[in-house]
């Protein structure tokens, strides 16, 4: 056994350059897999985090009719905020509950008019959810009774407004009547998410209710739970108590569902990358078998069995795979962990993203020990399995004929 390893080790260095090149191709594949998967995991985490904070919470509640016609933002289908309704949310697993009003509006006049989305929010509750109090870059955050707004940085720029100015909002009420209000621009926020900063503004819930003639109603209720994995279960329990409502956990968000499908697709892609990389090992081993036909014939003539010779060659390919996997895992791990803490700033790209897919602005990679170990083992096993295909030709070699080869 010891001889097998010694021979395989020596063979590895017989054509060092070729072995190293094969190892490098495996290393690149493994590093790319670790980096790409960490990046996708990080990006998914970023989208989930932004979706939960800015769009749906862990659970979003609306009327069924509002959910059906949501693209039209039908204020007439708003929820009545009764104490009975809030009783359904008294649950130890629920961390925060807040109401929001979402409405569409054209800001500015004539050709300079800008389509925007207004959110009526409960300023105090939203500090723990939206966290916009920490994202104010000019002026100050909202108070519950303010007749004021906070504007996204880009939106303020497009409307040529600064803190202290007045924003005139003209929209339609829940009863389809025209309504307007002059609101103080109290603060400017910046999230770094292009779609949010460019088209969203926030005002206190009470002010929005007054503007839109909504009384004590809101278009949606947002719930944050202690354990986000339990959101579907909690949503089911709320739905059971309020069958007339649309209670949707964030996991049902079509974007997130699409991402999970994509993740499976990426797995296939990783496998293909690995196969391509390992094909260089297969090529190397094929060359080895051809090069060493005479030598293999000699060993066979001396009485060495096929399995012994195959073992030597497979261990040689395992060595190539091992070196490649170690280097690739090392580079991939270092790079991914570095970007886990430093992050990749995508603000340049996310400035063009829509508010519906809150992507970025900084994506922190998310490598895990399981991913690293799996990638390493994948590199190692793939090297052995793929190398077996050319190596098994050894069994067909006739020693007498092999010894005659030049």
């Amino acid at each position, binding site marked *: 056994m010891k001889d097998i390893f010694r021979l395989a080790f020596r063979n590895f260095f017989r054509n060092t350059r070729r072995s190293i090149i094969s190892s490098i191709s495996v290393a690149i594949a493994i590093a790319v897999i670790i980096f790409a998967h960490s990046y996708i995991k990080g990006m998914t985490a970023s989208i989930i985090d932004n979706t939960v904070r800015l769009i749906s919470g862990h659970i979003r509640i609306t009327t069924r009719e509002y959910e059906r016609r949501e693209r039209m933002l039908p204020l007439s289908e708003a929820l009545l905020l009764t104490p009975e309704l809030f009783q359904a949310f008294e649950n130890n697993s629920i961390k925060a509950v807040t109401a929001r009003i979402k409405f569409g509006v054209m800001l500015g*006049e*004539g050709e300079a008019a800008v389509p925007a989305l207004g959110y009526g929010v409960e300023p105090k509750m939203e500090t723990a959810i939206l966290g916009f109090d920490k994202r104010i870059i000019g002026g100050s955050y909202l108070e519950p009774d303010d007749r004021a707004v906070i504007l996204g940085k880009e939106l303020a720029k497009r409307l040529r407004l600064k803190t202290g100015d007045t924003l*005139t909002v*003209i929209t339609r*009420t829940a*009863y*389809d*009547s*025209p*309504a*307007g*209000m*002059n609101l103080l621009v109290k603060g400017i926020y910046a999230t770094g998410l292009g779609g949010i900063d460019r088209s969203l503004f926030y005002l206190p819930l009470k002010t929005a209710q007054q503007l839109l*003639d909504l009384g004590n109603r809101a278009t949606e209720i947002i719930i944050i739970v202690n354990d986000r994995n339990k959101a579907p279960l909690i949503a089911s329990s709320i739905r059971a108590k309020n069958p007339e409502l649309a209670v949707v956990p964030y996991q049902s968000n079509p974007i997130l569902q699409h991402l999970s499908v994509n993740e499976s697709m990426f797995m296939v892609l990783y496998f293909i990358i690995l196969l391509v990389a390992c094909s260089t090992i297969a090529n190397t081993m094929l060359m080895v078998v051809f090069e060493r036909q005479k030598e293999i014939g000699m060993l066979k003539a001396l009485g060495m069995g096929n399995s012994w010779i195959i073992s030597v060659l497979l261990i040689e390919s395992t060595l190539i795979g091992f070196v490649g996997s170690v280097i690739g895992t090392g580079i991939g791990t270092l790079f991914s962990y570095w970007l886990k803490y430093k992050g990749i700033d995508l603000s340049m790209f996310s400035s063009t993203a829509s508010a519906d897919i809150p992507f970025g602005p900084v994506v922190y990679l998310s490598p895990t020990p399981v991913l690293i170990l799996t990638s390493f083992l994948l590199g190692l096993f793939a090297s052995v399995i793929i190398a077996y295909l050319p190596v098994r030709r050894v069994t067909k070699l006739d020693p007498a004929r092999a010894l005659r080869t030049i």
Partner: protein
Amino acid sequence: MIRLCFTNLLIIFISLGLAQVNQALEIIERVDRNNVVSTLSYDGKFLINNDGTIRAKEFTGYTKGKDISYIEFTAPARDKGTRFLRMSGAMWMYLPEVEKSTKIAGHMLRQSMMGSDFSYDDFIENRKLKDIYDIKLIGVDTALAKNCYKLELAAKVLDVNYQSRTLWVDTMSYLPIRAEYYAKGGKLMKEIIIADYQKFEGRNFPTKIKMINKLRRNTYTELALSSIKIDVEIPARVFTKTYLERK
């Protein structure tokens, strides 16, 4: 002989056709004479029925010619002071909360006026039907238990609110007591019923109109007009932006 008979028959058919066209035109001219005014001042009340919930809105309005009108809402408190001015083909809205007027974009004129089933265009239209539609008399029919002429109107100009209309014109009052308005694709958009009218010098003017927007569910709006004054002098300053934006 056969040729002579054929020619006579052709002349009879053409004459009958022309007579029908003339009769249709005559009916629509009488409809226009009733509806189209040179000037008008009135008080109005919308009763907007939305799924059984009724909201009332009161207003005062002035109209001059086919393209100038002014409307000011007086109740409820939330809408008090909301004003509209149509002039020079544009429409302006003044909201007291905002204290300035805003131009209503062209496509918005087809939207609901103050949450009612009337659009801004429906409400301010004062053009003669014969100028904008080709008229065809279909025959005599019954609507709201009254004998009516049934007319089909097809747009002959581009800037019409509805591509086609079917009118049931009361043979006594010459008012379209029932009407259906259709979009270009033939989709029924609105149904209108004139429930009551008032006699003025030489004309019958509708005072109670029910508008059903077929694109909305379970809603209709009743419009009641009172204090109607037709062909009276209206001060020119009423139809100005200064008057619209007065405090």
